[in-house]
């Protein structure tokens, strides 16, 4: 049995990480109507990149995010230019081709990791990995706290980019209405490349942070991909506040299940898959859609 404070603190911490993880998917989906199945592979690669910087140059896993982020941005842009751009453009709903193509990219990334790092389980052990501090009377691992801070920094960064720069306005314009953005003179192809880069960078950063919390193999990331899907489906696919709300709901569900039920931890993952399924089916418009429907129903 754990008290409410414990569940809430842990919920907020995981929600920040989940939101970082999900924004990468949401940006790409918003601009290109592509469901990036390679997101899992990119998170895995982010974990390994952080691991490589840590073992090779003894770079702190959280400092290395400053390297991993830009590196993955470039990688994303290259991936877009080389592969993704060649696809026929998705209409209002994502095309099956893009989904399967990125599934292929995921497989290639996995194989790359197997070839470079082998299939053994890896983890990052720093001086503070096992340390913990009290937050509102709840013991929290130091890495989790750093992950929380890293997530907040990334989310603030994304928000500033989206809200305060021309690029961000262009991204939001293409997300809202691609044709209207084109008419207004936005270079949609360049914006797509940027969005794909941003999404990839977020996947890398999220993966880098995950590597401080979990052990990983080249097969890493599948359950986190499903969690990210679950969040963007809950969040209504393209709304920024929606994603945050979705991340919070999923994190709360997981922490509450862990604290107040006797469900084995291995089954906790099944909870998010079930939530994903229910969310997709019951309210495909996500939480914002649900809220709107409730408002009309109450009126």
């Amino acid at each position: 049995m754990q008290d409410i404070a414990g569940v809430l603190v842990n919920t907020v911490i995981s929600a920040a990480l989940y939101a970082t993880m999900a924004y990468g998917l949401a940006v790409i989906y918003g601009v290109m109507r592509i469901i990036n199945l390679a997101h899992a592979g990119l998170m895995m690669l982010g974990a390994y990149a952080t691991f490589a910087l840590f073992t090779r140059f003894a770079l702190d896993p959280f400092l290395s995010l400053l390297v991993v982020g830009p590196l993955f941005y470039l990688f994303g842009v290259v991936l877009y230019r080389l592969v993704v751009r060649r696809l026929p453009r998705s209409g209002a709903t994502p095309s099956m081709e893009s989904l399967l193509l990125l599934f292929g990219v995921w497989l290639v990334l996995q194989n790359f990791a197997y070839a470079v790092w082998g299939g053994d389980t890896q983890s990052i052990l720093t001086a503070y990995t096992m340390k913990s501090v009290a937050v509102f009377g709840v013991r929290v691992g130091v890495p989790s706290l750093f992950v929380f801070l890293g997530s907040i920094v990334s989310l603030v960064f994304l928000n500033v980019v989206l809200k305060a720069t021309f690029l961000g306005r262009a991204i939001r314009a293409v997300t809202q209405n691609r044709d209207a953005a084109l008419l207004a003179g936005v270079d949609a192809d360049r914006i797509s490349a940027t969005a794909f880069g941003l999404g990839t960078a977020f996947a890398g950063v999220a993966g880098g942070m995950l590597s401080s919390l979990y052990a990983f193999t080249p097969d890493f990331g599948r359950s986190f991909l499903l969690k990210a899907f679950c969040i963007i489906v809950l969040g209504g696919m393209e709304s920024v506040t929606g994603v945050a709300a979705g991340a919070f709901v999923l994190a709360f569900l997981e922490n509450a299940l862990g604290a107040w039920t006797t469900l084995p931890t291995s089954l906790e993952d099944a909870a998010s898959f079930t939530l994903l399924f229910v969310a997709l089916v019951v309210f495909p418009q996500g939480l914002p859609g649900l809220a709107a429907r409730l408002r009309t129903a109450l009126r």
Partner: protein
Amino acid sequence: MKRLPLAAAAVLAAFTLAAPLFLERGTLNDVWSLAFAVILASAWNILGGFAGQVSLGYSAFLGIGAYTTVLLSLAGVNPFWTLAPGAVVAALFSVLIGLPAFRLRGPYFTIATIGVGEAVRVVASSVSFTGGSSGLRMPAGSFDFTLNYEAMAALAVATVAISAAVTRSAFGHALAAIKQDIDAAEALGVGSTRFKLGAHALSAALVALAGSLYAINFQYIAPSSVFDFRLSLAIVLAPIVGGVGTVAGPVLGAVVFSTLQIKLLSVPALRDSYLFIYGGLLILVMLYEPKGLVGLARRLLARVRRPPVLPPEAARAA
């Protein structure tokens, strides 16, 4: 001209069924794997190809078939009599999943099926009656490989025959209509959910049958074997590489796929690059020929048969 493919298929089917008479055990094992791949690919294609509903959760049905067979055999049932129950359970499960999931369209359906597949795997590896992650062993008893081979080969022939029959039936036309334009199909009075559920159940049952035979052949199942990533990949990749939505495509894809698998496993240097090859194949197919090998063959044939450029008058006349 129409008779030719049919005759070729009949010869191929007869050859496969009679193979134990003249093939040695090692080669027969390879043909067994090929038949297994043909069943998975052709069955998946009924929903994924004909109806255009791409599911990435088919390992769930394979697992249901395999686990039903082993659990019933452990309860004392003759393995032969466990095949039908496995297929029925899988079909029921497919309807249970399909009822909500078919409200989703295109990629949203696909994502939901990833969730289903993962959930089934997680549940199978954590509950106790499936033996958890250590899996289950078939009860000791006599096991006849030739019999298992014949069953698998017959099932493969039957699956291909069923999918050929589907393309000629009203059921198949309804699925094709759903694939092309679901709203138009609905407007014409095609109850899309009913047909999608039917296709899902049919293919789930066939995959479960293959799963049962798989369990009997290996005498041991575990989440890491029946829910193996490579296996769920094979289910989807073979029909896509071969050509979705055709009868021959999944068979062709399965042949390419199993040959590749056998070759890859025998060359140590390539064993570690199967994901690279499969992923690369998927990327190439999606970028250059989404209709797969069958589409490629048709394009080449058309180029050979037809003059490359029509003079303008002829083009206008046509």
